[in-house]
């Protein structure tokens, strides 16, 4: 580093404290202000005649009657002559003016409406430096705001102070050496920067244990902020306006979530705070490119909704922070910017094609987020398992399959349709999260997750009388997804013949059970199956199916027979059959029935 630079830096340090506040204050008092115009009396009718004859198009009238009598050329004035002539002149003027009155209002009236002008503080040759001072002052302003609001965050030597310092250190990478090169991004860059500084400080304010260090700030600046502002450079003014609007709605709500991801990285991976700015950049660019793209005559931002796209961005960046090699891996020559963009386009295409209107935007977007999370976090393993199935294609396929399955299931009045939006999202997420614990199931076995979803839904849909609550069914979904990790092949792929139809073992067993219990509940007052007992029956059955099922294969109706037998027993001796007794009986007898084909 140049010695002059060091000495200049030291001098700046010595006076910077007061200068910073001075410049911050100056910027505020330098705002343009409204200065009212001088108020002068309205002209009299006679003065109006004079003004009328001074309009360029009326010059010929000066020498014509009735105006010529009062016209005085040296001062270009018309003045009072006598009452009759004055009245005649006013009348003639009004007559001529009325012909033009619809064309435009007089300038004097317009000025009266405005009533003043905005006045800048400085003359041109005395203007403050713009880009540098404004961005530095922005940091100072935000810092001072936080000092007042959160003294514990912004005190001397605090985390907040260090964070702002970290952003200040990164200004060099945002501002080109020649400020003229900033062009259209001049103010915009300042806005985006301030958004992230505020968000970072808010994250610190809400959790004082959080750490966001210099390297992480550098990664955010070069990986997220810079791609956002650079994207705008080559746009024309119309595109600039649209882009700014998009960023406001896309990045505005996302910035705090993004900074929270960064902070969590430090908490979750002690000793490894490294965040790959190139991976962040790949995701950010992919989103910016996609957000302005149009598929099937619909803008992608409109397909997902801006809030949805913002949530998708956060999901993508989450993957980029945790598994950066998914998006960028220099050693393996991987840059998946285009793949991520293609994924968004593909998903948007299939959603905008409108497979079924029952799938709302919120659910579609949540589904896409869940898939990106599940597939993205495992992308490296998936690639190793089967290089012919890139993660983006796999994710697109999953989103498409899940969307189609949900669309078919969510017909009006169906049991699944009675789940609220959040419960529907959890249903798919439970399956994806559980299945992705064994990444090979996402890749090697085609449509594994889809079959689990399909099987689960097939069972839930049979619950016509609200045997179980939505939350109970979600617990059941988790049970099945867990079972699928180890026993997918048997439970969801192996089929058995039941009533003449080949069904997956799980659905072949559980669908008739649901129907049977519903029938019991409607026919018999002796044994009303409560949710707790039903869940126990399902759990016992699923557990039984994981073991020796030769008895079941010999006698496919054995569980139903068991239930009939239980009903008889409870009817004959109701005092003996409390819920605990029933559950105890089911635990043993279901397993025996499935294994040996007998009722114990």
């Amino acid at each position, binding site marked *: 580093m140049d010695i002059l630079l060091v000495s*200049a830096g030291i001098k*700046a*340090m010595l*006076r*910077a*404290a*007061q*200068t*910073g*506040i*001075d410049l*911050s*204050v*100056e910027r*505020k*008092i330098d*705002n343009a202000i*409204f*200065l*009212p*115009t*001088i108020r*002068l009396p309205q002209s009299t009718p006679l003065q109006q005649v*004079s*003004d009328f004859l*001074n309009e360029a198009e009326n010059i010929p009238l000066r020498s014509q009657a009735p105006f010529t009598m009062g016209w*005085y050329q040296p*001062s*270009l*004035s018309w*003045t*009072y002559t006598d009452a009759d002539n004055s009245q005649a002149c006013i009348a003639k003027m009004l007559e001529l003016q009325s012909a033009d009155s619809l064309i435009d209002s007089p300038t004097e009236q317009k000025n009266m409406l405005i009533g*003043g002008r*905005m*006045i*800048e*503080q*400085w*003359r041109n*040759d*005395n203007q403050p*430096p713009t880009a*540098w001072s404004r961005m*530095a*002052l922005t*940091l*100072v302003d935000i*810092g*001072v705001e936080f*000092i007042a609001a959160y003294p514990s965050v*912004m005190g*001397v*030597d605090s985390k907040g102070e260090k964070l702002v*310092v970290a952003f*200040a250190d990164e*200004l*060099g990478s945002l*501002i080109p*050496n020649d*400020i003229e090169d900033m062009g259209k991004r001049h103010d915009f860059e300042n806005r985006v920067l301030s958004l992230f500084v505020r968000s970072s400080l808010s994250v610190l304010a809400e959790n004082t244990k959080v750490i966001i260090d210099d390297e992480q700030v550098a990664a955010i600046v070069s990986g997220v902020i810079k791609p956002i502002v650079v994207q705008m450079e080559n746009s024309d003014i119309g595109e600039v306006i649209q882009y700014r609007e998009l960023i406001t709605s896309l990045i505005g709500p996302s910035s705090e979530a993004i900074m929270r991801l960064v902070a969590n990285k430090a908490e979750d991976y002690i000793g490894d705070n490294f965040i790959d700015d190139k991976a962040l950049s790949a995701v950010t660019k992919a989103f910016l490119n996609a957000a302005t793209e149009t598929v099937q005559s619909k803008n992608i931002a409109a397909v997902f909704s801006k809030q949805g796209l913002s949530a998708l961005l956060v999901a993508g960046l989450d993957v980029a922070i945790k598994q950066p090699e998914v998006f960028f891996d220099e050693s393996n020559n991987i840059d998946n910017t285009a793949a991520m963009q293609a994924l968004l386009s593909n998903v948007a295409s299939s959603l905008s094609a409108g497979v079924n209107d029952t799938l709302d935007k919120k659910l579609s977007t949540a589904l896409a987020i869940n898939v990106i999370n599940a597939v993205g976090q495992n992308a490296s393993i998936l690639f190793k398992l089967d290089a012919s199935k890139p993660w983006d294609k796999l994710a697109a396929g999953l989103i498409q399959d899940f969307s189609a399955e949900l669309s078919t299931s969510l017909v009006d009045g169906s049991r699944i349709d009675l789940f609220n939006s959040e419960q529907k999202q959890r249903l798919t997420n439970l399956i994806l999260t559980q299945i992705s614990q064994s990444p090979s199931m996402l890749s090697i076995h085609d449509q594994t997750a889809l079959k689990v979803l399909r099987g689960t839904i097939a069972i839930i849909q049979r619950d016509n009388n609200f045997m179980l609550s939505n939350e109970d069914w979600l617990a059941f979904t988790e049970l099945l997804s867990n079972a699928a990790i180890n026993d997918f092949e048997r439970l969801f792929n192996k089929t058995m013949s039941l009533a003449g139809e080949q069904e997956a073992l799980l659905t072949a067993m559980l669908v008739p059970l649901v129907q049977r219990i519903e029938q019991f509940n409607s026919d018999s007052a002796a044994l009303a199956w409560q949710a707790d007992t039903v869940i126990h029956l399902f759990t016992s059955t699923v557990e039984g199916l994981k073991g020796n099922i030769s008895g079941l294969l010999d006698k496919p109706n054995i569980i139903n027979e068991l239930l009939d037998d239980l009903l008889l027993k409870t009817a004959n001796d109701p005092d003996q059959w409390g819920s605990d007794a029933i559950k105890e009986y089911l635990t043993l007898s279901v397993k025996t029935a499935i294994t040996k084909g007998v009722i114990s």
Partner: protein
Amino acid sequence: MKWTTNNYQLKHSNTALKTIVSLFAVFTLMSCVTTEEFTAANDVNSMDNNLTTLLIDASAKNDTGEKKQIAFLAALAHESGDAMASSGSSKVALAYYRIAAVAYWRDDISSNDNKLLDVIDSTKVLCDALKVEGKAPDRDCFVVQITLLLEVIEDKFGAIANIDQSDFTDGNIADVRNLIDELGYQANSNNAKSQGFFVTFVETIKTNAAFLKNHPTMKTYIVETLLKTTKQYKRSMSEIAAYYRKTNNDEEMTSLNATHPIFVQYGNRPEETQDKRIEKMIEEWLTAE
């Protein structure tokens, strides 16, 4: 090299300056300096917004409710300006004084005129001191300087408009003449009266021509103000001159021409409309050396 307003034309085209600017943001926070001026600057912004609203409302409704609020705002800004001046925060004080000056001008309460004079005096002291260092805020110093002239010009033209002008007589034309002399009177020697306020305004603009040349928004405002005031002045002068011609009062006509050079200058111009003549005159005033 100081980070002061007179050095704002710095070109930041090297990394050294980039580092310096980054550092000043850094160390501002580290020093944990007082936020008194920062709070005051926010207050200035807020007062400006309130004043703008009140001025627009007052102009639209033309009632006295807003005027009282404007007067209150003027007093508040005046007091805050004095406090900031005492604590050495000259630029913030000047922002408050500018608000006070505009508000005293537009509150239409004549008993507050002496307060406007106080503000102008206090402003002058601060601006003169800051000008030595090249730090005087351009707009705020200039605006305070012209508010009194704008108020007086408004008052005098308002007074002329209150005189019955439908049928001039020796009596009422003398009243108009006295008032127009208070605006446009200017004689090279043997001054019987003080220089008119409109003439003073024009002279002030001429003195600040170089400044206005580089301050587009202020220049536009001044040009508009000059157009309106000169046109109004010319209207009244034409009527007085017409009466003297009609009554063959050569003596008063000669006196009028001798003591109102702006009107004479207007009469000698070749342009075909009054607006063109006035625009050319303003152009010349604004290119005065």
